[in-house]
């Protein structure tokens, strides 16, 4: 169902906001690549800029933008060169869709579920025929597990889990190349969460969708991940396949983060990271994690570049300078 393109490439993406207290460097030089049909999870703590990153990719910007630059390529098209109107018409929801945080509360209360899900099709002109659009919406709702008779109801008649499914259907209905999932399950109950994850796994398999899943919950992120990225203070500090990442995280921050996740099935000694993330108003000059890092050394006062090490993994830490394969 995908368009002709293959995957997403983000290069040197910056998104800074202007505030009264200065410039907030929410996204500060992010590089990412994601192949079509794969799922990338971006994990990070609150305030690390992960939601800003998803907004930057979809160009959903507030008014106080200070800097917004870089390149975002879908296949071979650089969508950053599009003007706002072209971007809205050709990219947003057609090629990149999003399930925002607490999406279930974002539905319009006075419009039936099926009509809301069909709306992107009509707006973006894939069809002019309302019945056809609703047909397609109902197909998509069935796929995410919303029963047929629920499609005709209003949002308030549905439970949180069902509304979240409707929001997912709405993102998928125009068969976009890429779907951004921003904390898609964080406001839901445990069992509902597991059900939604099952739905996303099924969608991923059936439609070969490309997802970016943004979350703070490492355990849940492993449910969907092919690749994993760790974000800290506006930057991606590690990027590797999920397999490598969950077994053997490289960056000291990722290691600590992994050690702080309580596990149900095995007992381990839990650790925590002392201190707190730096302010994005005036982040430290060198490595941004250095203040909290146990492995810091003299070099850390300079900003580390991204080293590519064994198996093509990328890590932004001086510890891996000697192992780097790209000099």
């Amino acid at each position, binding site marked *: 169902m995908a368009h002709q393109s293959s995957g997403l490439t983000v290069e040197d993406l910056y998104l800074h906001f202007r505030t009264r207290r200065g410039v907030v460097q929410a996204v500060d030089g992010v590089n990412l690549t994601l192949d079509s049909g794969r799922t990338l999870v971006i994990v990070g*703590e609150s305030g690390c800029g992960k939601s800003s990153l998803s907004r930057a990719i979809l160009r959903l910007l507030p008014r106080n933008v200070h800097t917004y630059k870089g390149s975002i390529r879908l296949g071979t098209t650089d969508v950053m060169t599009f003007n706002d109107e072209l971007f809205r018409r050709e990219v947003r929801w057609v090629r990149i869709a999003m399930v925002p945080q607490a999406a279930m509360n974002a539905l319009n209360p006075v419009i039936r579920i099926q009509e809301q899900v069909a709306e992107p099709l009509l707006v973006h002109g894939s069809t002019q025929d309302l019945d056809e659009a609703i047909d397609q919406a109902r197909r998509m709702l069935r796929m995410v597990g919303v029963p047929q008779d629920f499609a005709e109801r209003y949002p308030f008649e549905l439970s949180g889990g069902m509304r979240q499914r409707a929001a997912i259907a709405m993102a998928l209905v125009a068969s976009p190349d890429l779907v951004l999932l921003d904390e898609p399950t964080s406001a839901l109950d445990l069992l509902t969460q597991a059900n939604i994850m099952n739905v996303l796994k099924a969608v991923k398999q059936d439609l070969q969708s490309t997802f970016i899943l943004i979350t703070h919950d490492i355990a849940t992120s492993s449910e969907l991940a092919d690749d994993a990225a760790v974000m800290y203070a506006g930057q991606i500090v590690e990027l590797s396949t999920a397999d490598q990442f*969950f077994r053997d995280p490289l960056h000291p921050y990722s290691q600590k983060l992994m050690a702080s996740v*309580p596990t149900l099935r095995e007992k381990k000694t839990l650790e925590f990271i002392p201190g707190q993330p730096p302010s994005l108003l005036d982040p430290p000059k060198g490595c941004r994690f250095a203040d909290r890092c146990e492995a810091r050394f003299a070099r850390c006062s300079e900003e580390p570049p991204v080293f590519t090490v064994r198996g093509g993994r990328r890590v932004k830490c001086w510890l891996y300078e000697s192992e780097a394969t790209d000099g």
Partner: protein
Amino acid sequence: MAETAVVPQGTGQDSRPDALLAVKDLHTWFELRKWGFIRTGWVRAVDSVDFSLAAGEAIAIVGESGCGKSSLAKTILGLNTPTRGQIFFNGRRISHLTGREGEWYKSQIGYVMQDPYGALPPFMSIRRLLEEPLLIHGVKDPAERHERIVEAMTQMKMTPVDDFLSKFPHMLSGGQQQRVVIARAIILKPKLIVADEPVSMLDASVRVEILQLLRGLQRDMNIGLIYITHDLSTVRYFSERIFVMYAGRLVEEAEVDDLLDDPKHPYTKALLEAIADPDAGNASVYRKVPGGEPPSLANPPSGCRFHPRCPVMIKGLCEVEDPPRFEPTREHKTLCWLYREVSGE
């Protein structure tokens, strides 16, 4: 509400003599009204709950949102009036405490809320925040108050203390705010702390720190701790016994390891199945979890409240009769008809 005010009385009905807190057949129902005066029903937030807590013991109450766990906490704290049933604290009945007795009870329990920022009045400095409970409970000597503030903050590892005292809540990070909330809860040296989702608003990397601090305090000061959470994966590290709550009932209780390794109730099994440990293999398996949603507490299903979602429901029994408490193995109790034969009763 049906009962008249009762003066605190000595116990004698307590099954566990060492119990710090004993909750017996507790019901907290909220009235549903139409046009403000016609009663149309009840929301049965807490429905027939029994448990006890020994001095210095840490227990966890686990359940999904809307299962009544916060209503239970508030009833224990005396913020909700129980509809039926009793709560005994140190052998004294606390359900209808008033005046001096009420003040005394409030000095014996600490409450840690979910949202630290919401729990701290923004216009009060940390010093005033921590001083307030001492003033209310009659610590008149300013030097002693200062000493106890310093002590509580040192226990919460907020040092150097002087750096924090004149700050306001918005100047602190979420983790530090939550420490102030805990310091405030322990400053009167209570016997019991009720922590309602103390870390769910905090980041993963500070969660563990706060929980370890809380658990350390509980051990050092020999405080009873009721840790209320939806996150089963943290309970192994921070409590000794677990109670699983579903739709107003405690459906299973056991020692932590016993419950996590050998869950009995189908609901507990489903909860454990739903929780992922970080592992790339998760991406290729579907989790076997029941569909549906927790029932409305205003109109709970007949019989066992889990039966509409239960994969192993026994037809003709589960939807008709409420399961009693069975004890399939020692100290491991559950409300489930599956264990009607193996139970010792």
